[in-house]
């Protein structure tokens, strides 16, 4: 789960990491009031869970309350890469002497927590990685000992931080590392980390991704599962216990297991179709979950055909068939179904679906090929 900039910053502030003073507004007048309170130049920043806000015009500087109101009026409601702006963060503008990069994250390669820093802050770290990989420096936290002080010193030296700032940098790195663990985050990124006019290190922007598997012990954010920023169908699927990603194509795909679900989409694409979604039933799903999955998929107006591809193991094919039958009893749909159910209780599944207007396939590629054909006919 991704947190907004304002959520990340309020959390950083609580952990003792300096951030600019700011407040959130949902209306232009709200932004105006905040600017009046600050009585200085402010930055008005769109709060959306996507990168490239600046380029899209989602960040504006305002010299007085009138300008802050204008800026907010312009930014609120804006569409940035499919994300509608509902909130702006209004912050005291900072004087920037230098822009750095600092992040703590789960690193798969080392299977540890990694702290990454760079003297090249303010742009996407992937860009830095592409044009000057030497400018990205890394240290690794021992799972039991954490970050050691000499590592911070090395990191500070390697990113050419002025010696006077080393003690503050040490404190910042340990707090960031501690916050990553305390909040069960996969990623906690400060970009840019600035050196301001009074030579302080300040987090000018913040990004945080929480581990969905640990939300149960993070009560502050655990209740926000399925944020406002997600596609509504994805939120509905999430609540039904399904792994669903909306893709917008013409062939709906239902499978069990993430790998098989992806391979199913891939095969549809390979034979010239366009997957409408990723849908993983998960292991041992219930009849109701299958019914809900079918409901969600056939409701998508772009869908022309539906493919069910289930390898029964923990998941029982007859339960998948029952769930499909229940959905077809309830919904009037002209969308053709291609069904491939193999493994546990496969024969029983075929018997259940016999009275329904579905096409059976036994081989994976045959199923993918056929569903693509049907989608083409449906579109014509």
């Amino acid at each position, binding site marked *: 789960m991704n947190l907004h900039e304002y959520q990340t910053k309020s959390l950083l502030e609580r952990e003792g990491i300096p951030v600019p003073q700011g407040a959130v507004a949902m209306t232009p007048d709200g932004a105006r009031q905040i600017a009046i309170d600050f009585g200085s130049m402010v930055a008005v920043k769109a709060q959306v869970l996507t990168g490239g806000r600046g380029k899209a015009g989602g960040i504006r500087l305002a010299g007085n309350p009138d300008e802050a109101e204008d800026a907010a009026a312009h930014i609120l409601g804006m569409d940035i890469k499919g994300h509608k702006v509902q909130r702006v963060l209004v912050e005291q503008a900072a004087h920037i002497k230098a822009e750095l990069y600092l992040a703590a994250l789960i690193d798969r390669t080392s299977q540890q927590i990694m702290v990454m820093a760079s003297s090249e802050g303010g742009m996407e770290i992937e860009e830095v990685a592409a044009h000057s990989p030497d400018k990205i420096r890394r240290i690794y936290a021992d799972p039991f000992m954490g970050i050691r002080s000499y590592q911070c010193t090395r990191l500070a030296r390697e990113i050419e931080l002025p010696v006077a700032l080393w003690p503050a940098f040490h404190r910042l790195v340990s707090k960031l590392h501690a916050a990553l663990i305390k909040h069960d985050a996969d990623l906690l990124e400060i970009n840019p980390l600035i050196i301001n006019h009074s030579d302080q290190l300040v987090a000018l922007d913040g990004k945080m991704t929480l581990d969905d598997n640990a939300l149960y012990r993070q009560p502050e954010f655990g209740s926000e599962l399925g944020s406002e920023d997600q596609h509504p169908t994805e939120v509905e699927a999430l609540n039904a216990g399904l792994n669903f990603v909306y893709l917008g194509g013409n062939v709906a795909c239902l499978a069990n297991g993430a790998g*098989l679900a992806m391979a199913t989409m*891939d095969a549809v694409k390979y034979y010239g179709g366009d997957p409408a979604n*990723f849908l993983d039933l998960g292991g041992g799903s219930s009849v109701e979950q299958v019914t809900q999955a079918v409901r969600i998929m056939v409701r998508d107006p772009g869908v022309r055909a539906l493919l069910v591809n289930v390898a029964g193991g923990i998941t029982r094919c007859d339960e998948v068939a029952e769930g499909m039958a229940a959905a077809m009893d309830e919904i009037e749909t002209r969308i053709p179904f291609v069904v491939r159910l193999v493994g546990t209780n496969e024969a029983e599944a075929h018997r259940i679906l016999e009275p329904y207007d579905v096409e059976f396939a036994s081989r994976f590629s045959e199923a993918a090929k056929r569903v693509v054909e049907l989608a083409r006919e449906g579109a014509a």
Partner: protein
Amino acid sequence: MSILIDADTRILVQGFTGRQGSFHAERMLEYGSRVIGGVTPGKGGQEVLGLPVWNSVAEAVAEQAVDASIIFVPARFAADAIMEAADAGIGLICCITEHIPVHDMIKVRAYVTMKGSRLLGANCPGVISPGKSKMGIMPNQLFSPGTTGIVSRSGTLTYEVADALSQLGVGQSSVVGIGGDPIQGTNFIDVLKMFAGDPDTERVVMIGEIGGTAEQTAAEYLKAHHPNLPVFGFIAGVSAPPGKRMGHAGAIVSGGGGTSAADKINMFRNMGLPVADHAEQLAEIVKASLEDRD
């Protein structure tokens, strides 16, 4: 031969009395695995499937020899169950449980390594050495004995591939699911190393997916250490959009390059490793390579 488990492996089941634990223990027994009993705290002294239940792993190993443990404990307690098995000196620990918090797994992985045990998973389907033993949740009937090793990040996709291979008459030496999580007790390279050292494994099928760069690291390892081991690949997620997590916690195309299916496939092909265009074709190219040889 086979890797990780064989007909003699004595297996303990943690979470034995639960729905999943007892169901799969029964399937394992049907397959011929030597399940010796299980652990559920507070239920020691009972019997399940005619086998003893102990309160702790320590109690189990005090009474019987145990080579391996399979864990079906719910996510909130699974990290502890893994450490309990490691503390009891069990050499191979297979954790089926999904949704264990990643910060717990970082510590657990380091802890298990320190104790000298091997962890498989978490969030994995386990391992099967066809015809000998199964320690996992895969359907029994899809696998057949042979000389092709399979290592995979995905569960059900592995069943598909094993089934397709079996139907073409290509049997398997061992099939290992390393799981789809970002933190893994056992990775591709660990398993490839074992297959390379197994006299009965003549070729390996490697099933990867989007996210991370473990497939590339494995391909580089193969080139450097086992250039003559025939390896056939498949990468799931060619059609996955960037930035979206596809079911598995680890399956996400993220910035920085190398994590997309296309990147991984290109890397494999550049190293001369054959990669299938779609899942079913994987078995066909393995079969074709055997015919070429004849």
